[in-house]
């Protein structure tokens, strides 16, 4: 009797990249719902625009690279990039801004470096930084969260859609009427205006730790992140590293001078720290690869986030922190190589 031959091992993985990506997307769903609840339907429109351009851009570039487009499209990584980019955007963002970010993320940051697995930089953050620099005005249009006694002007679905498509608000409303500075902006400008943290925190936009509404999104992101940890889709090293990197300096500074330094809790819930810790920094392709390396990578991102927020000119520093640490990955990797069994206990770095 004849048989087909094959190389060992004769089993293969029960998990596959597409299912990993889908689970990451699933973990983002609660936070997405919270986002829509607090900041209106703009999130959905942004997500649609980002997804269409990320997936379309990926199909186009695969065609130009003479590769089968369906391979890239069915791993769902472009959708994850689109979703992460969308979380970074204010709910009122004109479509061309979102589209630019999504296209840059997928076409330049990902495929010009060789596609999935070869990109040095986190695609979503590279795309976000490009639009942050190119369209700073548009990325400032955060509307006030729909919660409690905050004076907010809620836009209807149609009004939001119109803004997404045209970039203009209903005539009766000016930008000032709908937009509010984010908690991080409030904190930054307040501190620059020499007010104390407790004074700044009296602003109705501030919640228990960070900003109201934002805190809830943070909670749901953490929930999704813990689920990914339990499912072993991400490992603990990077989230813990980011946490340490942010909380350690924030805690020390807060203990020394609570009047001019926001609390560690504010740093955790005030911006994109949680999104970064569980979803952005954990992109395996652009992160360090060994457990020790990942811890260092995470701590580096956390420290940079703290530094940029505290001393930089941007209110939040997640995107820059991630991109800078992406650059450090080759060095981290070569310095944190695990000791190969049989090579003496002191082996490793070389």
């Amino acid at each position, binding site marked *: *009797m*004849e*048989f*087909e*031959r*094959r*190389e*060992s*091992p*004769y*089993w*293969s*993985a029960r*998990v*596959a*990249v597409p*299912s*990993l990506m889908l689970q990451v997307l699933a973990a983002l769903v609660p936070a997405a719902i919270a986002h829509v609840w607090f900041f209106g339907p703009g999130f959905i429109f942004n997500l649609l625009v980002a997804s269409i351009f990320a997936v379309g851009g990926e199909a186009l570039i695969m065609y130009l690279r003479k590769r089968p487009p369906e*391979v890239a499209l069915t*791993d769902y990584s472009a959708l994850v990039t689109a979703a992460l980019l969308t979380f970074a955007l204010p709910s009122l963002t004109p479509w061309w801004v979102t589209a630019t970010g999504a296209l840059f993320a997928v076409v330049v940051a990902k495929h010009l470096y060789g*596609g*999935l*697995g*070869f990109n040095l930089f986190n695609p979503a953050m590279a795309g976000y930084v490009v639009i942050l620099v190119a369209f700073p005005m548009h990325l400032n249009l955060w509307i006030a969260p729909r919660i409690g006694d905050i004076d907010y002007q809620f836009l209807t679905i149609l009004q939001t859609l119109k803004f997404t498509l045209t970039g203009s608000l209903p005539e009766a409303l000016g930008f000032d009427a709908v937009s509010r500075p984010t908690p991080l902006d409030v904190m930054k400008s307040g501190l620059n205006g020499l007010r104390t943290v407790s004074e700044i925190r009296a602003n109705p936009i501030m919640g228990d730790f960070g900003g109201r509404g934002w805190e809830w999104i943070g909670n749901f992101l953490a929930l999704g992140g813990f689920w990914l940890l339990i499912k072993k889709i991400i*490992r603990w090293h990077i989230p813990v590293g980011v946490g340490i990197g942010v909380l350690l300096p924030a805690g020390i500074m807060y203990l020394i001078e609570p009047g001019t330094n926001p609390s560690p809790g504010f740093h955790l819930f005030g911006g994109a720290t949680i999104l970064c810790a569980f979803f952005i920094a954990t992109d*395996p*392709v652009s*992160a360090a*690869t*060994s*457990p020790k390396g*990942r811890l260092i990578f995470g701590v580096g991102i956390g420290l940079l986030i703290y530094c940029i927020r505290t001393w930089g000119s941007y209110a939040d520093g997640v995107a820059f922190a991630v991109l800078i640490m992406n650059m450090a990955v080759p060095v981290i*990797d070569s310095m944190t*190589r*695990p*000791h*190969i*069994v*049989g*090579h*003496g*206990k002191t082996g490793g770095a*070389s």
Partner: protein
Amino acid sequence: MTAPTYDLGKLHGGLRLPAHKSDATAQPIRDVPLPPQLILPITQHVGDPAQPVVGIGNRVLKGQLLAEPDGTVGAPIHASSSGKIIAIEPWPVARRLGDNGPCIIIECDGDDLAVEHEGLTADYLSLQPADLLLQILDGGIVGLGGAVFPTAQKLMQARTCDIDFLILNGVECEPYISCDDMLMRERAAEILSGAQILMHAMQIDICYVVVESDKPEALNSLGGALGELDDDRLILKQVPTIFPSGGEDQLVQLVTNREVPSGGLPTDVGCLVQNVGTAAAVHDWVINHEPLISRVTTVSGDGIANPMNVRARIGTPVADVVEFTGGYAERPEHLIIGGPMTGRSVSTDRVPLVKATNSILVVHRTSFQGRELACIRCGDCASVCPVQLQPQQLFWYACADDEEKLREFGLTDCIECGCCDLVCPSHIPLTADFRIAKGRIQELADEKARAERARQRFEARNERLEREKKDRDAELARQKASAKQAGPEAIAEILKRKQQESEDD
């Protein structure tokens, strides 16, 4: 029965795999009847092929020597039954390199008459260790865990080192395979007797008998046999069920917390590892004078109608073994000799069962298929690698064909256990890729050695030519100088001779 689990070293990574063993362990070991033909490859061990000492047409008896080692490493081959040698020719065998190997083919006469081995004594304690080793050498015994290194030579090598422990390997970590488990259940006393023989031959005072926690029956039966033996040099140890803790180096690390150096052997850290099946074979040879002519093997997998463990003569065609168990089930698409992680896929069931065959596995094609995607550097492979390599980096360098980096990142330390393959979400055939890369590194090294030899030859030739030229030049210069010295007189002489010649005319 719970054996102690204390004092265990830590193994990095590894996997808890579904065992798939209960089907085959549900019934006792059954004997496969004599096949009409026995096919005995002359290479059934690590090392050089054994040289046949019989010819076509010879009648042989069971246990008679057919081929003996020629060269430094090798083991003799014995006739598994009585009959007539009808051919010595290439036959399909389960090897990675090449499909056919030279085999001695016996047409069995069915009488199964055994040869008398003379001059052997069962009272091994009366023998000097060195003599006992020589006796073991004649038994044709090789490591039955799958590595098939000639046992006697392994022991002789170990004699040159300081050995603290004999480790009896009852850790059968690959899924489906249960032949050692069944052997431990049914022949615990013989296994322990084999261990005692090995301890005498090696003059070792401590023997760890190591069994995985998922084999309570084997632990029980070994525990019982140990109790009857009342030999406190033998210690039963239980280890957690994690693949690949049955690998020799991994087991040493687990049991003694000693790391076998890269490129070294367990004997470098004072350990001698022997499979439980090997110990039983040593017992059979030294006590019962039966050389290694049969073994227990697991026949299992989705493609097997009635999975079980069987004892079959070495040389029985796999087709006959499968037929005895009840034949193939639906869709027998892949035939694997060995386990699902490290076994060898073969193209035909005409291959014979050999000393290395611990399992005959027949599986469906769909049990392992997935499209290969790009590596996303998730690092899952690195977290399961028992040698703590970084397969994701190795894969990168293997794609780039960067030999230097491959060496630096320890490709040659890869034990090809297949763990990385199994967890890769991109379904990259890492183990196969590494095997190819290893082959290429070896090729490059060979080529380098060849080039080095050619360079040396070329340089030697140049040197020789240079030397010859120098010698010639020196000779010429000497002649010139002597001509110069003798110049005027010589010319005068020539002129004189010419003159004489003309005068003579």
